[in-house]
């Protein structure tokens, strides 16, 4: 397996909540079919978390009770740097839920208003979360310190 393939495979590994990392058998197939992927849908009620329909007509069904992307895996749609900041900005209890809400809203905004609007929304939310997490004062102090270093103020 090439370095590039290994890197992409890691991005497609999923983790069962509470059970540690779990490499689904289908992750390699998902990787291989990424470019041919034409539809993916979830049907929790039927016990199928994700059904992937490939261009060649084959179907992959992921059955996993509860799964989430690994912490170091950034959502492809949202800005990568912002996704890396999220674990530091969110309280542990709401980490998965808020990150999911952000992803859902980001996709919705991107579909309706375009990606630049969605990116602005995303960074505005990140800014708001940072203010709530650390309060305004340390952020202001950090920005001031950076400006002083950068411009000699």
């Amino acid at each position, binding site marked *: 397996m090439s370095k590039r393939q290994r890197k992409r495979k890691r991005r497609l590994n*999923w983790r069962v*909540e509470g059970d540690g990392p779990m490499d689904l058998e289908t992750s390699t197939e998902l990787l291989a079919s990424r470019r041919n992927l034409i539809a*993916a*849908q*979830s049907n*929790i009620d039927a016990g199928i*978390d*994700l059904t992937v329909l490939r261009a060649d007509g084959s179907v992959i069904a992921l059955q996993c009770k*509860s*799964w*989430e*992307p690994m912490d170091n895996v950034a*959502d492809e749609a949202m800005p990568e740097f912002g996704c890396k900041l999220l674990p530091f900005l969110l*309280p542990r*209890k*709401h980490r*998965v*839920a*808020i*990150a*999911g*809400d*952000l*992803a*859902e*809203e980001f*996709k919705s905004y991107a579909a309706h208003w375009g990606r630049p609007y969605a990116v602005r929304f995303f960074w*505005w*939310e990140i800014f*708001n*979360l940072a*203010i*709530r997490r650390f309060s305004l004062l340390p952020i202001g102090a950090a920005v001031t310190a950076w400006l002083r270093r950068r411009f000699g103020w």
Partner: protein
Amino acid sequence: MKRRSLGGFEQAVLLTTHRLGSEAYGVPIRRELSKRLGREASIGAVYTALERLEAKGFVTSWLGGATAQRGGRAKRFYRVEAPGLLALDEARMATANLWEGLPAGAPA
């Protein structure tokens, strides 16, 4: 027992959660709030209010199933409990009392 107060935004979030019923989680709550209040509420603000409401015992939450649309991340659903309904009722009565005897709408 000390009565737990309900802030303005908390009241709006609690009412919206009650209105949404079994579909109450972050995104629909935020959208409904934006639609009814006529201004955008940030996700952080909504969750801060929900966390306070949960600490007061007005709502309970649980993690739902993960969906592909959210990158495999689970939703946290909220439900208004009896103390929350009581607090909403008290807030409505308090507002009605304040309005009593005054003409509805802005003064001419």
